[in-house]
Structure formats: structure tokens, C-alpha cells
């Protein structure tokens, strides 16, 4: 589509953007830039929600929505672009409908595929600005690398509980790899599904990302390039950190080693030193092993999930202080909600001389799936 056809001049939709046209930094010229702009939003979840809503409302001409997931009931607490009735539907499709309902002048590309090494560069190439609203480290490195290799700006955001990070990675400045050279080992940094997230934090951080994307298109203001914001919703503080380009960055440093996108696989966790028990085998194991006890290392607030009655609770954060309450001659099956904290706890107990240890694979969440008396969160 050429620029002429996308021009807003004389079109009825001008009235829609009158509050933008009144701002000298936007004006008609800016609004036309927005109408010609193409933005790829990778991830239509908590961060993607406000990004999509505000970009659509602002009149961004073309929006790609890349997400291979379907709407889950647990998404609705923060992914306010979806309605209750959308549960089970493809996110890219449901979100595209909402975007068009909000602003029919926006062209939407619903892309119900996962961004991967086979499609990342081609997809990124089709857009002017890319928003990283993903929820995994692998995807974040992929978006970063594809953007840098295709010379596109990457508007980055991520969230955990009450804390969010926002930045903009543009060619010529620091990138995600300059800040975080390698992903944390598998399972060591909890996802929203594992650690939880305040719903409104996704709105705060995603709205920052939408603002940065719009400024990049308009070419106005000072962007977050070279700066990282940490949004602390708990204490209501926003802190700013200066970033520097890493001269040895493998992507754009003096001797780049990354010349194409590759899959970034987090290092596996250190191997478990204790044997694992499958959730479906737990009941039988506890029955057959008279001195065996389930050691529940979830934090007290997580225990609303319920626990098997025979379990003894020692939260992971109290393990050091309360280790004397445990008997190193006894058999323990160490468990937490999803199996991350319990790995560490099992290792710690092993280091402390406990030898009859087992680890519950997948945690109590996996156990609850096969036991109707427990609620699954």
C-alpha cells in the first residue's frame, strides 16, 4: 500500500484523532506517520493487551499480533483485552477482533504461530517497530536478535509480581544481550504462572511500551534507548538505570559471533542429586515406605492450594533455620508448587547430610491434577 492511499487528509477518521491533532508534537503529520506505521506485537498476553489497545486506538496503520496460545481462564486477571467468552479461543484471533472493534481503520495480521528461528527474521522485516511482550527467555533473545539483525527497534518489557522492566533496544545502542548476556538456567527464574504477577502491573508496563512504540514512530521525545526502567508497583517507585553497549556483545560487538537467529536454550539446571517420584506414584510410595513423609517447602501463602494431610510444612525460605526440626535418618519426599524451589531444597538437604531424599517431579500442582480433592491453580 503506498503512502498516498494511507494518507488521512480529507478522510472522515480525522475527527477520531482530534485530540492527537491538537498536540503540536503529533499533529496531522504525526497522525499520518502513525497511519503508515507497521508494528509487530510479539505476545498477546498481559503486556500485549495494553500495547494492542493503545496502538489501535492511536491509529497505527498495521498491527501484527503474534501468539500461538489460546486464552486460558487464568489469563483474565490481567489480559483485559479478552472477555470471559474468549476462553479457549486463539489469542491472536480474539485480540485481532477486539482491535478491529476498537478501530476499524487498523489493518490487523493475526499470526497464530509461535515466533521461532524459521519465521522470526521474515516477520520482523515486515514491520517498522517490534514490541517484545513475550513471556519466556527464549522468545526474548529471539526477538532481540531478529530485531538487531534486521535493524528494527525492539520495545522490551517484562514483569514479575510487583516489578517490571522496560527499555528500548535500537541499532547503535545497547541490546538485551548487552544487559543480560545469558538466560538464567532452566527453572530458576519463575514465570508469571509459577511466581504470580499483579494484574495491573502488566497494564502499567505494557502502557509504557505502547508509549515508547508511539514515540519511535513519531520520532518525538526521548526514548528509553540506553536506559532501563524498573517499575516497582509495590512501593510506587520508578527507577532508571543507565545501560551501556557491551563492546564484546556477540550480536553487534567488535567481533560478532551471532550472524543469524538461533534458538537460545537456557542452560539446564544442575542435575538433581536425589531420585524423583512421579506425582501419580506418590500415594503408593508413601504407603509402602512407613517412615516416609512429604516435605512441603511452599511458602505459607502458596499453601492455600491445600496439601496431602500427612505433609510436614517447612517453607523454603525457613529451611536453613528450621533444618533441626527434620531427621536426617528419615525418608522425605520434597515438594513445592511446581518443582523449582523443591529442587533447591532437596539439594540443600542433601548437602546437609540427608540421604533418604526424593523429589516430587512437577510439584503439588502436578499431583493435584490427578487428585480431585485438591484445587488446581
Amino acid at each position, binding site marked *: 500500500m503506498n503512502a498516498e492511499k494511507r494518507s488521512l487528509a480529507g478522510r472522515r477518521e480525522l475527527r477520531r484523532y482530534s485530540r492527537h491533532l491538537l498536540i503540536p508534537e503529533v499533529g496531522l503529520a504525526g497522525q499520518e506517520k502513525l497511519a503508515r506505521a507497521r508494528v509487530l506485537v510479539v*505476545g498477546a*498476553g*498481559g*503486556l*500485549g493487551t495494553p500495547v494492542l489497545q493503545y496502538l489501535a486506538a492511536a491509529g497505527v496503520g498495521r498491527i501484527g499480533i503474534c501468539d500461538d496460545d489460546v486464552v486460558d481462564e487464568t489469563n483474565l486477571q490481567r489480559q483485559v483485552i479478552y472477555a470471559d467468552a474468549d476462553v479457549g479461543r486463539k489469542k491472536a484471533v480474539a485480540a485481532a477482533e477486539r482491535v478491529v472493534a476498537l478501530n476499524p481503520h487498523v489493518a490487523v495480521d493475526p499470526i497464530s504461530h509461535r515466533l521461532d528461528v524459521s519465521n522470526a527474521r521474515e516477520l520482523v522485516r515486515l514491520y517498522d517497530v517490534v514490541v*517484545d*511482550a*513475550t*513471556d*519466556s*527467555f527464549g522468545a*526474548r533473545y529471539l526477538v532481540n536478535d531478529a530485531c538487531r539483525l534486521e535493524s528494527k527497534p525492539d520495545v522490551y*518489557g*517484562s*514483569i*514479575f*509480581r510487583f*516489578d*517490571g*522492566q522496560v527499555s528500548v533496544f535500537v541499532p547503535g545502542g545497547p541490546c538485551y544481550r548487552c*544487559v*543480560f*548476556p*545469558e*538466560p*538464567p*538456567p532452566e527453572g*530458576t*527464574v*519463575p*514465570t*508469571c504462572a509459577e*511466581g504470580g*504477577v499483579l494484574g495491573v502491573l*502488566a497494564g502499567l508496563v505494557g502502557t509504557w511500551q505502547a508509549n515508547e512504540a508511539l514515540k519511535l514512530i513519531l520520532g518525538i521525545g526521548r526514548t528509553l534507548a540506553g536506559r*532501563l526502567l*524498573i517499575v*516497582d508497583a*509495590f*512501593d510506587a517507585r520508578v*527507577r*532508571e*538505570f*543507565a*545501560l*551501556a553497549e557491551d563492546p564484546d556483545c556477540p550480536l553487534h560487538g567488535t567481533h560478532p559471533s551471532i550472524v543469524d537467529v538461533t534458538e537460545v536454550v537456557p542452560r539446564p*539446571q*544442575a542435575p538433581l542429586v536425589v531420585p524423583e517420584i512421579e506425582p501419580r506414584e506418590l500415594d503408593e510410595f508413601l504407603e509402602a515406605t512407613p517412615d516416609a513423609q512429604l516435605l512441603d517447602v511452599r511458602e505459607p501463602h502458596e499453601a492455600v492450594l491445600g496439601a496431602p494431610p500427612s505433609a510436614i510444612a517447612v517453607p*523454603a*525460605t525457613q529451611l536453613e533455620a528450621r533444618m533441626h526440626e527434620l531427621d536426617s535418618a528419615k525418608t522425605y519426599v520434597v515438594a513445592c508448587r511446581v518443582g523449582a524451589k523443591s529442587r*533447591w531444597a532437596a539439594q*540443600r538437604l542433601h548437602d546437609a547430610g540427608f540421604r533418604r531424599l526424593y523429589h516430587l517431579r512437577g510439584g503439588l500442582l502436578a499431583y493435584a491434577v490427578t487428585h480431585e480433592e485438591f484445587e488446581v491453580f
Partner: protein
Amino acid sequence: MRVRILAFAGVREIVGAAQRTVEVPAGATAGRVWDDLAREFPRLSEIARSTRLARNGALVERDAALQDGDELAVMPPFGGG
């Protein structure tokens, strides 16, 4: 000398506080303060290689020297979206 540690996200969870002030020998580096913290909270060691340190609002390497009253932010990557 005294240094104020700011903990975010997963680090905040493990340390159990958003801030804490520690007493360290004069000339201590950012890495030294982090190592002390990781010794006290062994669970931090598994994310050590992917956590960045910032001194008074700017990312620094481990060998950056600290001064009395400095603020050292400990920033793990966040995955969620």
C-alpha cells in the same frame, strides 16, 4: 563503609526485603557485595551469572569499586509477560 542493596523481583523474594544496608570493608567491589549476599542466601548462586549489578543507577561489572553510601541494585532478568 555502608552500602545499600536494592533487590528486585526474584532476588527480592529470596532476600525477603526490597532493601538492606550492609557493612563492607573500604574499597569493596560490587562483586564482593554480591558474593556476600549469595553466601547468605545460597539460592541466589544459581542465578548469579544472569543477574546484573548497578551502582548508583548505572550498570557496572563485578570489579566496580564502591564507596560509602553507594546504592547497589541487584537485577535479575524477569521472564514474565
